[in-house]
């Protein structure tokens, strides 16, 4: 608003222009880096998929021909099918259980102020830093002390414990970003705390809850260390693969791997659609 009578003139700084050659070199270097990175990430998966259709037991070049035999064998392998079924059962139950405990825990951490809150927050998140071996052994000891028989259910409890940290951190991060004024506005407009939670808080953390759930599912699905200690007679899919791998990689395993990649892709697409937030 206020302007002095004489405006001092400031010379515009001279911008150094990069030459076309320099820019081309920089762009090429960057693109090459990205290409190498993508190759590093995805070539192993392509190899897995290709060999699952290869008409030979040995995993060597050149490819000998196309076959669906390994997929047919999968179809007839009841042990493998049981393992897949077990993995789905464990991952689903562990996810539901961890969400049921984790979401309220995150809300409590966000909303309530109580002595020892910081300690509680650290304790909830700590298991994420513990190696699975430690979680596995300690839970095994606990179940022994309590006299539980090892089974898929003990695996579920173990996974749910280990995954709690994932859910709490994800949901907490979202709650931190949710303006406090939204809940206040809801109360101001006549809503009770429960009504506010259902109609305001939950819809706004929905995508974080779904995301944490999917991540938990995937982590539980391919978990080995905790499962190793806590399972009874039943095997999950990664455990089954691990045990057959001792006799070498078979094309059947490649076929399972390909199916899992396909399933993961479907999950990812579902996750993207479900968690697509409206712009704020």
């Amino acid at each position, binding site marked *: *608003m*206020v*302007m*002095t*009578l004489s405006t001092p003139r400031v010379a515009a700084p001279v911008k150094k222009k990069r030459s076309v050659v320099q820019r081309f070199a920089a762009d090429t270097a960057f693109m090459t880096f990205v290409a190498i990175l993508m190759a590093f990430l995805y070539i192993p998966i392509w190899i897995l998929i290709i060999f699952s259709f290869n008409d030979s037991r040995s995993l060597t070049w050149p490819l000998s021909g196309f076959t669906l035999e390994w997929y047919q064998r999968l179809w007839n392998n009841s042990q493998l099918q049981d393992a897949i079924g077990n993995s789905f059962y464990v991952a689903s139950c562990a996810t539901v259980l961890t969400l049921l405990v984790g979401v309220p825990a995150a809300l409590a951490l966000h909303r309530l102020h109580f002595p020892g809150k910081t300690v509680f927050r650290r304790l909830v998140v700590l298991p994420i830093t513990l190696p699975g071996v430690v979680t596995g052994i300690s839970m095994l000891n606990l179940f022994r002390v309590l006299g539980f028989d090892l089974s898929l259910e003990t695996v579920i409890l173990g996974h749910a414990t280990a995954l709690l940290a994932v859910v709490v951190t994800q949901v907490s991060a979202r709650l931190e970003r949710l*303006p406090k*004024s*939204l809940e*206040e*506005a*809801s*109360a*101001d*407009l*006549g*809503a*009770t705390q429960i*009504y506010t939670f259902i*109609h*305001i808080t939950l*819809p*706004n953390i929905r995508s974080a809850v779904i995301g944490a759930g999917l991540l938990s599912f995937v982590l539980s699905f391919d978990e080995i260390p905790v499962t190793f200690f806590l399972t009874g007679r039943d095997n999950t899919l990664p455990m089954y693969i691990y045990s057959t791998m001792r006799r070498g990689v078979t094309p059947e395993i490649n076929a399972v791997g390909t199916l899992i990649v396909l399933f993961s892709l479907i999950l990812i697409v579902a996750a993207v659609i479900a968690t697509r937030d*409206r*712009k*704020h």
Partner: protein
Amino acid sequence: MASIIELDRLSKHYSSSIVAVDNVTFAVEDGEFVTLLGPSGCGKSTLLRMIGGFEDPTDGAIWLAGKNVTWDPPHRRDVNMVFQDYALFPHMTVGENIGYGLKLKKLNRTEIGTSVQGALSLVGLEDKIDQHPYQLSGGQRQRIALARAIVRRPKVLLLDEPLSALDAKLRGQMQLELKHLHEKVGISFIMVTHDQTEALVMSDRVVVMDSGRVAQEGSPNLLYDNPNSPYVANFIGTTNFLDAQIARVDGDRTRISVAGVEIEAVGETHRRAGDAITVGFRPEKVRILKDGETGDNEIPGEIAEVVYYGLGLRLSVAVQGGGRVYVDSLLPDRLADSQVPPVGHPVRMALSSGNIFLFDEGVA
């Protein structure tokens, strides 16, 4: 007119040393527009949040329409708030946002529909009913937040720095719009702001706050023309302050020696000759005298700086004793260079006795 809301010795202590609100008592009349004005940290927002029910007072009581609501939770108080960040629910449409508080009032669908339409037409955004908040501009969100709060017909509408997120031009426009809206709906408004222009433009009454206490309250022109302390004089508008001494008290006239001369102020005073005081006056009440012209309370000085701000000139004049006096003058015509006194030029200023404030304390 009866008081719709009364604050009775309201206090909020965060700890024994941190006092946000200190023993505040005032009442708001039915239909009045009251502004709580003060710098950040003066307790004005805490006070508003206590009225809304978002903070519990440490002491004192809040009476709303004759009922003690001090300990009622927000959802049981017949007041509504417009939040600084608007707090529109991002997952709901404009219509759902406005209808939210009506659904909770257990109104039926048709009643809600009619009320939402009415509120939207009040703020001129009927066509936005199915849009989401992220599709609206800042000014439109502001209007929707207003509509959402007003549609419940609260006894008092609370506004927490409602215009602070808008750019300067839009803010000026919304000030008037809010004022007109207030006249139309007839609900009492309590607004918090740190912007003195906003307070002067919109309010029937301004409550100036300082460190959790009420420094002064009154109509905008009372505060502007009769500030009771250098704090208020400094916060509302610009004021020149000069150290001075009482020379003589003569009934309702007080002679004051300041900047090497003696000037006269009017009004009864409890002060006596020899008392050290601070003299205050507004830059636009000072007149630069032309050669040969005489005026009341002449103070000599020397031009130290000239600032042009479009509408006029602000001269900074150095006076005896080391003080600086700002003089604002509007430019009646195009600025001719010859009319501007050059820096270093001696001038005489005139000031009418009625425009001089006397304060016991200095400027903080």
